[in-house]
């Protein structure tokens, strides 16, 4: 049992690390046991122990000692609990883990909205509210950063480029097996009283928070490790593993979006690691990065934090753009309009995303002179973002639109992001932002971007690739019911929040003035409606996975490579490496063929789907 071995390794690592640190502390004359200092250091040992237990020992360490590496040979459902190196297994591991986290964080939101239904403290006191709010935000950010890239970047991208796996399959498994420790740290944080800093964890509040805050730092740091490793792998895979003939401008747009997302991840995630590390050191090692009394600088935290966390917004949203354009092309039966402009839009966003971070700090007390440049750069980023809409609208125009469930979700992304994007233009305007910063207007805005864009994109991807991943079809009617229920619930919840923000409700408050009561009650009702929509999804998802009708290899009639092989694909994906002849968007072009898959492969598709 991989997980048991990992757990033993983790516990052993913690004990070893703690013993080591405690003896050093004792030798240095301080109290041996101090929960934060010992835990922060021992976490690294625990992490190492866990990784050795789950697979590092078998795959990497044994060969160092001249032994043969021990490969897992588990089959069936047990593979998903192993250190399996097949990118398709890892994709599903990511999907299920982060869906679970998503629903957990969603439940927290339901409790928050229940509390906010009326004036005064009802079910939660202010401290509990702050903790729940902080955990909700943190967990949802983790989901938005990792779910789509982890699940579909892993499962689909290698197939779409005609590869048999990722460039570094073992490293790929490693990046997934760094996720369970993240969940452990979040759980530990919850049970040690949480933290009251929000997901942004501003210093010096975060330096002073309870031990739950330390676990937040460790969780984010560990997820960052996982992101960096995963991003590196995807970059190398796309650069080196493309099939013969798969030139850069023949890549499916989804591959582009994941590739660019990964570049952002690789460059910027280290800064969140740095921000977390600096807070941990301030808490445990007596450093004074953010302690003004000793000459530290609280604003430094915000600069480092947002230097990651603004690009992180694009890490969350670019994959959804990619999915949306991909789906819009396949379900309008038209070539992707202005393909190169769409790619240019993604690249432009990537290029500009590193020079806009201080728009989160217009009221922070940073130098006045920084306001204009960051106002300008932020407003300008709407130009490349507009190219995504240019491409989507151009593709829809005079298409033969098929209203499948994935298509509905893709259209949902466009509608919701339109509102999220336009309100972003308002917030980037400094005079307006001075009033609206830290109000529900901001809450509404980023939920339109991240939930309405990113998570709607995630669900578009789930409905789209479910048949490929599981070999079964999801129920179409239930899918449509889920879409409309979620779409209406989402807008009913978050549209009134703009008005709440304009009226003067600030964010992250457990209680509010009585004039805001009616609107809050309405928002809560919308929230519960939104929350219940996922019951439909879960029922459909689980039932279809177990007993849905068997999926053909290409139920959508799409032209990208993953639909040209059986559902689910065999271990090596393609029997012979495909040769790519044109981009995958040649709908309506008589002689256009995306790829030559070889004779044997087309036979295996005709034989059926038992593979």
């Amino acid at each position, binding site marked *: 049992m991989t997980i048991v071995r990992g757990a033993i390794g983790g516990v052993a690592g913690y004990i070893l690390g703690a013993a080591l640190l405690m003896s050093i502390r004792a030798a240095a004359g301080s109290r041996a046991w101090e929960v934060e200092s010992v835990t922060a250091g021992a976490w690294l040992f625990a992490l190492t122990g866990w990784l050795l237990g789950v697979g590092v020992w078998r795959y990497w360490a044994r060969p160092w000692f001249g032994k043969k590496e021990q490969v897992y040979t588990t089959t069936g459902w047990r593979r998903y609990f192993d250190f399996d190196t097949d990118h398709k297994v890892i994709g599903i591991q990511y999907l299920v883990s982060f869906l679970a986290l998503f629903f957990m964080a969603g439940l927290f939101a339901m409790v928050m909205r229940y509390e906010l239904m009326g004036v005064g403290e009802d079910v939660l006191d202010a401290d509990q509210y702050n903790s729940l709010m902080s955990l909700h935000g943190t967990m949802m950010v983790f989901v938005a950063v990792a779910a789509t890239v982890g699940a579909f970047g892993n499962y689909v991208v290698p197939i779409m480029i005609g590869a048999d796996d990722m460039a570094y399959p073992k490293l790929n498994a490693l990046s997934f097996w760094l996720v369970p420790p993240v969940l452990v740290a979040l759980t530990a944080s919850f049970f040690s009283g949480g933290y009251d800093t929000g997901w942004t964890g501003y210093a010096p509040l975060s330096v002073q928070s309870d031990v739950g805050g330390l676990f937040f730092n460790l969780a984010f740091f560990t997820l960052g490790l996982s992101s960096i490793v995963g991003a590196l792998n995807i970059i190398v895979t796309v650069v080196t593993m493309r099939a013969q003939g798969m030139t850069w401008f023949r890549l499916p747009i989804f591959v582009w979006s994941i590739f660019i997302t990964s570049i952002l991840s690789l460059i910027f995630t280290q800064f969140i690691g740095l921000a977390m590390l600096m807070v941990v050191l301030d808490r445990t090692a007596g450093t004074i990065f953010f302690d003004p009394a000793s000459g530290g600088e609280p604003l430094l935290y915000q600069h480092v934090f947002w230097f990651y966390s603004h690009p992180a917004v694009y890490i969350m949203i670019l994959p959804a753009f990619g999915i949306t354009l991909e789906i819009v092309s396949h379900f309008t039966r038209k070539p992707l309009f202005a393909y190169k402009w769409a790619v240019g839009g993604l690249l432009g966003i990537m290029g500009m995303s590193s020079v806009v971070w201080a728009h989160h700090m217009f009221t922070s007390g940073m130098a006045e002179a920084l306001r204009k440049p960051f106002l300008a750069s932020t407003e300008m980023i709407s130009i490349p973002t507009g190219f995504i809409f240019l491409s989507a609208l151009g593709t829809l125009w005079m298409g033969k639109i098929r209203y499948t469930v994935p298509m509905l979700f893709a259209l949902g992304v466009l509608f919701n992001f339109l509102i999220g994007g336009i309100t972003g233009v308002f917030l980037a*305007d400094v005079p307006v932002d001075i009033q609206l910063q830290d109000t529900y207007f901001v809450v509404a805005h980023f939920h339109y971007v991240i939930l309405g864009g990113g998570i709607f994109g995630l669900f578009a991807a789930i409905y789209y690739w479910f048949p490929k991943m599981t070999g079964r079809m999801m129920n179409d009617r239930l899918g449509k019911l889920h879409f409309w229920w979620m779409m209406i619930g989402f807008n009913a919840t978050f549209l009134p929040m703009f008005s709440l923000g304009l009226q003067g409700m600030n964010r992250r408050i457990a209680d509010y003035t009585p004039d805001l009561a009616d609107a809050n009650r309405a928002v809560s009702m919308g929230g519960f409606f939104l929350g219940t929509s996922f019951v439909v999804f879960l029922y459909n998802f689980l039932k279809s996975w177990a007993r849905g009708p068997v999926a053909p290899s290409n139920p959508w009639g799409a032209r990208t490579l993953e639909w040209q092989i059986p559902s689910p694909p065999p271990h090596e994906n393609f029997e012979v490496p495909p040769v790519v002849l044109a981009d995958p968007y040649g709908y309506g072009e008589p002689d256009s063929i995306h790829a030559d898959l070889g004779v044997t492969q087309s036979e295996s598709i005709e034989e059926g789907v038992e593979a």
Partner: protein
Amino acid sequence: MGEEDRNNSSKRLLVVGLIWLVATVLAVIAVAAIQWHPFAASREAEITDDAFDLLLLFAAPVFTFVLVVGGYTLVRDRDRGTGADGAPIRTNRLFIGTWVVITTALSVLIVITPGFTGLDELRAEPEPDLIIDVRAERWNWAYTYAESGVETQGTLMLPIDRRILFRISSTDVIHSFWIPAFRIKKDAVPGQITTTMVTAEVLGSFDNQDEMRVQCAELCGVGHARMFTGVTVVEQAEFDAWLAAAGG
């Protein structure tokens, strides 16, 4: 493209253009009719609210364009079970060129106004008539009127039509000094003094306007939600009397 297709295509463009025009006019009327802003009581509030309204005006045609073009094609171009492919249009120079030029111009325009112009307006008139030191601590506000040395807590008393400079500091964590009715907000950062200026232009108090309050707008711990006090704006004479009574 055949002659018929071309006619068809120009008819579509005409129809979409007309709907867009109507939708934009309706949107602009709606934008003007809705009361977007809460109670406003300062010179700064006018600048901020004007900027917001101008952005709404810029946003209206963009919003309606995407909705009308998207909506039209979603209704008109649905596949009625033919299983056929759509027209293989990969590019259109005129459309792309127009799009790029207009969105770029609009973005630049927005940066200049209300962006830069609004900021410059806010920064004009830097000479204060009155200086107040604001001290934030978990979880209340304390004010010192610099000239007279009077220290108060609770309600913030201000004279009308005077340029007021707030010098904001914090003794513990980051807070944010926000007066919704004035549309001003600036963080209180430990180890630093931040500033913001305001001219109150309307008499009033928290008793009759919820927006007349100093509200902490940066999460600062368990008392954050309740970290607010009232703001009262009075005539200069009344203010002087109050200040004298308070010990100045």
